[in-house]
């Protein structure tokens, strides 16, 4: 608009003055809005992407006394994730497959197949984990036996403390983050 005017007859000093004042105001306005956009936009992006920013420390969660598990057997254990809240409802109760080896040694597998995350099921008789989605199969030690999964079952870290079996679980493992996203 102002450039159109500048092509017309020479402006009076007052008008010229007015024009530069208007340009200046516009620049100030754009500047204020740019700052305001950052002041509003950064917190919004931070809010939406908060899971990327905040780093929760990994928590130990108990699966119960070790006496609950028999040597040489594999069983499904349900436990509460330490990262849940009331709105999570039934999804707070997660599961893992616990295999007790001789002594206090364990192998603790996530229930999620390493192919596409479907729940694997343990079959005691054939000593296999089978996935219902695309037929992935894993041996008792979690190693890949057949089908499309690209790796062995995901395992959780564990420790035995005061007779309790503790795992660093409560998370959904995936190929990019086999230990889970925390």
């Amino acid at each position, binding site marked *: 608009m102002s450039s159109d005017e500048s092509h017309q007859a020479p402006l009076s000093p007052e008008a010229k003055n007015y024009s530069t004042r208007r340009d200046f105001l516009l620049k100030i306005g754009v500047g204020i809005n740019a700052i305001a956009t950052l002041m509003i936009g950064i917190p919004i992006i931070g809010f939406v992407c908060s899971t990327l920013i905040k780093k929760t420390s990994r928590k130990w969660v108990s699966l119960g006394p070790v006496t609950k598990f028999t040597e040489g057997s594999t069983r499904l254990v349900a436990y509460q994730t330490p990262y849940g809240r009331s709105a999570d409802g039934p999804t*707070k109760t997660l599961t893992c497959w616990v295999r007790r080896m001789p002594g206090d040694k364990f192998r603790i597998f996530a229930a999620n197949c390493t192919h596409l995350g479907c729940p694997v*099921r343990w079959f005691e008789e054939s000593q296999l984990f089978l996935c219902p989605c695309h037929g992935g199969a894993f041996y008792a030690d979690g190693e890949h036996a057949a089908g499309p999964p690209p790796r062995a079952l995901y395992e959780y870290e564990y420790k035995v403390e005061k007779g309790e079996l503790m795992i660093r679980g409560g998370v959904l493992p995936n190929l990019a983050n086999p230990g889970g996203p925390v």
Partner: protein
Amino acid sequence: MSTKFTDRFAGLAMWLDRRLHLVKLWETTAGHPIPKSSASWFYTFGSMTLVCFVIQIVTGIALALFYTPSAAEAYHTLEFLNFVQPLGWFLRGLHYWGSNCMVIIMALHMTQVFLWGAFKYPRELTWMSGVVLLFLTLGMSFSGQVLRFDADSYWGIGIGAAILGRIPFIGAQLVDLLLGAPFIGTDALSRFFALHVFVLPGAILALLAMHLRLVLGKGINEYPKPGVQVHPKTYDAAYQEIIRKEGIPFVPHGVNKDVVANGILLVLMVLLTVFLGPKGPGIPGDPTQVISEAKPDYPFLWLLSAAALLPNGSEIMLFMVFPLIATIILFALPFFAGAGEKSWQRRPLAVIAVAVIYLTIGMLTYAGITGPWSPHMEAWTSVHSRPEFIKGRPPLELQGALVLQNKQCRNCHAIGGEGGHRGPDLSTVGTRMTAPQLVRQVLQGGGNMPAYGKNLSPEETRAVVAYLVSLRPPNTAPAREAVGPLEPQKEPAKGPAQADSASSPTMQSLARTDGH
């Protein structure tokens, strides 16, 4: 008195029109001129897609009055809608069938636009905005089925996370953004809710406004005549000439077939709702119930099938490279095929492409419904053995039949067509494989079969192999080992027929062994 009233009414109408310019608005929108030839049944899919979208908005707002986007509540609100809230089932059903209709009719619309050459000059942007609308609609369909929050939805989110987790470099961050929490819970559900109710519909409305503005601005595609070429330099003038000669206003003269088609569509949606009802919810999305197959709704079944049927390790190709290439081709289409022949009758490649795409997606969808690659998890306890596979066998073979059942072999292997179809049907395996081959296959596994060496005692192995060798049609010989090492065929010397008959069935059986 009545004339006075009419005059006053006309005066009021004129007053309003001078301020709102309704006549002008009408002439440039609903009443815009279209070529007479375009008032065709084939040109009704666009308005049908729009009607589906309107139904989705209305039923969606109604459902939002009751839906609670919380992992603790979502499933219960669906049951409440189905069984307690008056007409809740009807609204849910209409929303579900409206969604399926929208995806299918949008695909038909796209196919018609492609085959009738409507994407060519000067309607490139109309096509491209339509492609984005297709992706947004598929996004709506997927995010909508997640909101059902039954087992399929819960594990479906897990599949989504697993796919994102395969993306190099940024996979972990994308999984974090999808779930909003370290596990699949209420935050993941809320994200899909926000997408389904705010982000995607908002984007659809914006893109739809652009799409319709382009339709009005560039006019409806004339019904293509074989042999008539599109030349960007002369097309605009030629189109104006068509409109001048045989243009009719869309409303009221070009809309009749759209009105009929949409009426039938709406009645069909109601019939589907009343007779088939809403989908689900299935069993609850409960991580302690590790029994789900996580099947998506119809529009995505073909992807699930492809994931199951493609060779192992091709997931990156399927979920990242293929969609990227498909998107690039769809966007680039009006630029590398923007001129020339419009009619499908002179575009054999276009027709072949459509046929191939429809056949591929159709067959993969069918495969997705039957899901032959999924083990039948309950087969070992729930599927019986027919008498002909048991009767008259010696104790060792009967013991083998028991081992076969108890070791869950039938979760993957059918006998007499019953059981899983992940592996080959074993009804006639005795004609294909010899006892040593069977021992090797059972103990070492191979192909897509786990090794059972650690789980079978020598006695069990002997029994199960004896049973498998006995699985042959009556009066057929068991498979035989090749007589000697496979050598290149020599000169037809003595007894070639005998050599052939001895080696060919076993060669076949060896080949099949490798395919297990």
